[in-house]
């Protein structure tokens, strides 16, 4: 049976295709010249160039972290091109290369129809440059800023200067520091005081050019009494070369504000022999700065050869709340080391961590979490649940939950389970008429239900489809 499942699982990456458009690409390697090149391409102001150069010098003195439960080929940082952009400078949809539009259509997000799709504003990133931002004007009426971070640097320098690296300091970690030096684009969103963003903001990332690192930088600020839900979805074309991705996402909520950040990550996972696939080293952190504020991370991680990612919350405001809901699937030879860090600083702060790890074929899945209760965080609470599901005999699941409590008034709960998808479960579902794939999909969806329920509706539909797709042959 397991061999049948393996055959199913080892299916071709469904979103694997490459669009052939001319890229404006930096030569391989990283040095001060390259950073100046990127900065010039981005038309950075001087302060941004200085900031990048400072980060670069800091990065040179840092070492790649080795504590994660991951093994991969050594990354040759001098064999990566740090900038790639579609050549034209596009102002309207009519000017967009038809091939790019075709790519989006394959991904199910035709830009042409997006104009009609009220409800979702899409800031589409093709390689590293924002091709098109839609619904910009409608959002503007409410005072919401939703644009590429490059535009924000030029148009809203005061906001950017105030908040950039205020959550993830420049030298926070090796990959975040690299990102600070070379980030090429990303999303900026600012929700003014008292505004509830009426639509889901959304970005679709797509890595496309050969040997190109993807260094996104996202900054979202929710002013007092505001609310925003942001969806990040990713997929990448089929590639043999390993591609490095090091993104940084920073969220800030002020008093009574809420940010809901949802991710579907479906980058090329490489093959069963660990050939190819994206190396994904991401730093995501939110700062609940104001009292009663809330940040919620929901992620569905199905792609990438290597995932290193710990969406975290700094709970500074009193009564602030942090959430982390995660489904991570590792099939083929994928490895994920993912989890969350909840740092309780304010009084009566609370956090919830629900992590569902699924390993299939030769996949390795690690949950790594830290719940830290500082002395000031009186009456704090945390609930953590991490469940692992194993499919087959070659995969593995690992759990490293750290708890550090520095006062006596905190209440913490931790639950963890590890189970194996059994032949008996599969047989039970199949004896009722479900096909093997459907049975697997049903069981896995059931396992992830608590997390999937947290996703915005249309995103949840996509996530379920993706789970089934990833697990075609992911139960063994």
């Amino acid at each position, binding site marked *: 049976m397991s061999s049948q499942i393996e055959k199913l699982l080892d299916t071709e990456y469904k979103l694997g295709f490459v669009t052939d458009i001319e890229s404006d690409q930096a030569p391989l390697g990283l040095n001060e010249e390259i950073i100046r090149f990127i900065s010039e391409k981005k038309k950075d102001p001087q302060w941004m160039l200085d900031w990048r150069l400072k980060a670069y010098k800091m990065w040179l003195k840092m070492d790649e972290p080795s504590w994660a439960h991951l093994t991969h080929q050594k990354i040759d940082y001098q064999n990566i091109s740090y900038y790639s952009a579609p050549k034209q400078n596009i102002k309207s949809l009519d000017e967009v290369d038809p091939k790019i539009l075709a790519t989006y259509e394959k991904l199910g997000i035709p830009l042409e129809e997006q104009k009609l799709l009220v409800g979702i504003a899409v800031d589409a990133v093709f390689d590293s440059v924002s091709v098109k931002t839609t619904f910009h004007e409608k959002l503007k009426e409410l005072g919401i800023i939703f644009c590429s971070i490059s535009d924000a640097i030029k148009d809203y320098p005061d906001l950017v200067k105030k908040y950039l690296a205020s959550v993830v300091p420049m030298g926070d970690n090796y990959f975040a520091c690299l990102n600070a030096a070379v980030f090429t684009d990303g999303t900026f969103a600012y929700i003014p005081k008292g505004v509830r963003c009426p639509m889901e903001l959304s970005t679709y990332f797509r890595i496309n050019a050969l040997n190109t690192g993807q260094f996104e930088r996202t900054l979202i600020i929710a002013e007092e009494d505001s609310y925003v839900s942001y969806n990040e979805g990713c997929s990448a074309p089929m590639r043999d070369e390993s591609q490095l991705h090091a993104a940084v996402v920073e969220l800030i909520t002020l008093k009574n504000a809420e940010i809901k950040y949802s991710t579907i990550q479906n980058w090329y996972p490489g093959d069963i022999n660990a050939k190819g696939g994206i190396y994904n080293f991401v730093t995501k952190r939110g700062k609940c700065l104001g009292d009663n504020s809330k940040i919620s991370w929901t992620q569905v991680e199905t792609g990438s050869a290597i995932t290193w990612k710990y969406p975290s919350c700094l709970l500074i405001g009193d009564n602030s709340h942090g959430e982390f809901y995660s489904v991570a699937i590792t099939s083929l030879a994928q490895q994920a080391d993912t989890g969350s860090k909840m740092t309780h600083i304010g009084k009566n702060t609370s956090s919830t961590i629900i992590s569902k790890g699924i390993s299939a074929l030769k996949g390795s899945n690690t949950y790594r979490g830290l719940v830290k209760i500082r002395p000031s965080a009186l009456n704090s609470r945390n609930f953590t649940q991490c469940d692992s599901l194993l499919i087959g005999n070659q995969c593995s699941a690992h759990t490293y939950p750290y708890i550090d409590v520095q006062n006596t008034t905190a209440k913490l709960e931790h639950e963890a389970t590890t189970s194996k998808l059994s032949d008996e479960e599969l047989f039970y579902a199949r*004896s*009722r008429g479900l096909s093997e794939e459907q049975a697997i999909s049903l069981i896995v969806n*059931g396992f992830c239900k608590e997390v999937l329920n947290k996703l915005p509706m249309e995103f949840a539909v996509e996530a379920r489809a993706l789970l089934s797709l990833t697990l075609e042959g992911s139960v063994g």
Partner: protein
Amino acid sequence: MLSIKNMSVVIADKKVIDGLDLEVKAGEVHAIMGLNGCGKSTLLKAIAGSYETSVKGKLEFLNQDMLELDSSARAVLGVFMSFQNPVEIPGVNTTYFLKSAINELRLARGQEPVISPEFMKDLKENIEFLGINKDILKRAINVGFSGGEKKKSEILQMMMLKPKLMMLDEIDSGLDIDALKSVANGINKIRDKDSAVILVTHYNRLLEYVKPDKVHILQDGKIIKSGDFSLAKDLEDKGYEDVLK
């Protein structure tokens, strides 16, 4: 409708069924009895196409070679097995599970998906018929069900899926009299001249409600004695040792 000749079944590297013959005709009820560990459950699993079993010999249902079909395809043909220990599937709502299964069967049979209001009406009727608390429809399948609820849920699934071959593995174990009656009523309600029932049981009680046409005693991987209902009565009175003397 079911034709088994010289069938052997290996499960967990052990030959449990060895040279078994069995013919079941449409409209018949067969009871399979035997000591613990004689292979009754394995026989049903082999017919339903469990991953655990490796089968040799002839196994035909409705003139189709079942050995060429996987468990899903056998279900499409109309084979159903209720489990002695129904499996819990966390997070999968019972109603959703049933509807998915029905639609999958319909799709494979070239039929349109079930119409929701009709499905719900059918479900509600069957639930009332079996005396099941309707809460279980919202709960994950078999998770936290009592022993009786699990058995009744198996019958509910069978009533909804309307199979042609109903195989019930110790459906009577752990049931109180009232529950046993409703389970038996459920079986009797859906069986007809075109369908057959195979009951695996240790006790006569169920057989008094679902009258068997044939009773078989399984031992050493074979059917060593067959008879009518009186054989089951004999067994209950005298025990296996005396009956098989």
